[in-house]
């Protein structure tokens, strides 16, 4: 599904946010990326989502070498294969929830009527079928994040990337959001989640630990359980 090989990212100011990182994620995995603030998690997610290009090294997604793709091809990749969920939802204010979700299909070249139908289905899936015509400001934070998830998955992406999706939510809403992401994973979607929350991280199949732009540990849940048992 995804492989990063010797990826390095140096920002304009001279900050090395990723330093020779190599990572392979198989289709259908549920991966958590954890680490202290400034360790390069978001930078890594941007690489995985083709939103940014590495300074050196290569990124392959779904068999495509991202470095060799034109802007149009990259956009097509994002439009059809990748869904994003952000910490701050990024919903359009004043636009009905169903239209916010339908915009997830806008750039995949689907007609408006069908976009709305599919958006309605995605909203049912996240349990917001009854709030379709509400505006985002009428929803709670957790509900807004569920709308954002609906928008990310209405195009049936094979890869879902979430940057601290529960970061702005209370624990109950956070749990609902996590349940939804896990459901998606169970249906076959590759899901990568950045999180600060240790409990959430532990509940994921695989955890990638980062520090200072490098991967310090990459363990499956079994590893973690074993490690805990040993102590």
């Amino acid at each position: 599904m995804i492989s990063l090989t010797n990826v390095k990212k140096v920002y304009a100011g001279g900050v090395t946010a990723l330093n020779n990182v190599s990572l392979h994620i198989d289709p259908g995995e549920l991966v958590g990326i954890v680490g202290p603030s400034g360790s390069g998690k978001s930078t890594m997610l941007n690489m995985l989502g083709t939103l940014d290009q590495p300074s050196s090294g290569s990124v392959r997604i779904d068999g495509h070498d991202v470095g060799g793709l034109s802007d149009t091809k990259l956009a097509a990749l994002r439009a059809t294969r990748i869904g994003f969920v952000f910490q701050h939802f990024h919903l359009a204010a004043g636009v009905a929830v169903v239209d916010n979700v339908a915009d997830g299909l806008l750039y995949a070249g689907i007609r408006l009527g069908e976009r709305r139908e599919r958006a309605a289905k995605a909203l049912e899936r996240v349990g917001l079928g009854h709030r379709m015509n509400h505006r985002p400001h009428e929803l709670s934070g957790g509900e807004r994040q569920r709308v954002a998830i609906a928008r990310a998955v209405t195009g049936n992406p094979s890869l879902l990337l979430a940057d601290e999706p529960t970061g702005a939510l209370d624990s109950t809403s956070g749990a609902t959001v996590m349940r939804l992401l896990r459901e998606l994973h169970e249906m076959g979607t590759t899901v990568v989640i950045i999180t600060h929350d240790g409990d959430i991280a532990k509940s994921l199949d695989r955890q990638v630990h980062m520090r200072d732009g490098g991967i310090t540990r990459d363990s499956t849940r079994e590893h973690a359980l074993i490690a805990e048992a040993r102590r």
Partner: protein
Amino acid sequence: MTSTLQRPPRMSARDVLRVGAVGLRTRPMRAFLSSLGIAIGIAAMAAVVGISSSSQADLDRTLSALGTNLLTATPGNTLTGEQAKLPVESEDMVGRIEAVQEVSALGHISEAKVYRTDKVPEEQTNGISAYATRLDVLSVTGGEIGRGSWLNKATDDYPATVLGSVAAERLGVREPGVHVLIGNTWFTVVGILDEVPLATELDTAALLGWPAAQTYLNWEPHPSTIYTRSADAHVHTVRDLLGATVNPEAPNEVEVSRPSDALAAKQAAGEVFTGLLLGLGAVALLVGGVGVANTMVISVLERRSEIGLRRSLGATRGQIRTQFLAESLLLAALGGAGGVLLGALVTAGYSAYQMWPIVVPAWALAGGLGSTLVIGAIAGLYPAIRASRLSPTEALATT
């Protein structure tokens, strides 16, 4: 899992419009104000063109009703600079020109002043002149009687007068039947004329019968203005002959003019002014365009996170560019449509008020709308390109 990447189909025109209208829907007041700038410019230009076309149409209508075949001969100056006189027999001479169909004349009674009462000091003349008139002056000049009646065989030799529209107003005469003092004689006002566009001297005239002027005012009969009508095809020939016919001894002491030309010339003088107003409208339009550009620059700055989101949803750079260009075009087009409508309404209102035919030229409307689109495109280009160059991560970083 792996498959070839297919480029999604292009966005439909409808989707481009919907996305372009996002900014307008979320900030309607700002959109309204920035299109208002364009609207004012376009409205000004459309109204100027519309009003000048309507006034032109009115002139055309007037000219075709009044005819362009009226020629007048008046005395000019002698070589020594004195006021020349037309010979007494000049009327008959003109009548003998073959192409001339109708002849008529006025005779200025220079000594006679016109007053409403005998209490007014003699120096105050109101600018009203007394004229002896032939009975057919009205039909030859295309004048119309507004109230009362015109002079006839019976009143021709009778102390009766017909006042021009301006003269009646200045004398405070609204209805026929009152008396006015001309020279030292009281004359009964029998009629009041409407304005006579082709013979404005009639507007400020008090008109008496030719014999009456001689009987009551001791006037020595001399024509001062000769009017002729001839077939349209011969107007030029008659014009060339008129001076020599009126005064064979001193043709250059006769001034020949074609009043319809003077009307058209007045219109042409107005066109310079029209051009000036049009220029002002263009400046307003330009300012409106700058307003739209400004709105777009701000819009792009404010909506960085929306841009980032759209990029993450799969928008290409081109699609972002198109979105903001469409928004700018929409703003300008809304302004243009509003402006054209406003300009047409102003034209209609003003023309109706002036009793002109309402003419709003299609080319002006199309041109107005077309120019707003050009302005919208220019105003939106730079902001749109900036928006499309934003890197998705940078755009998303601003919350």
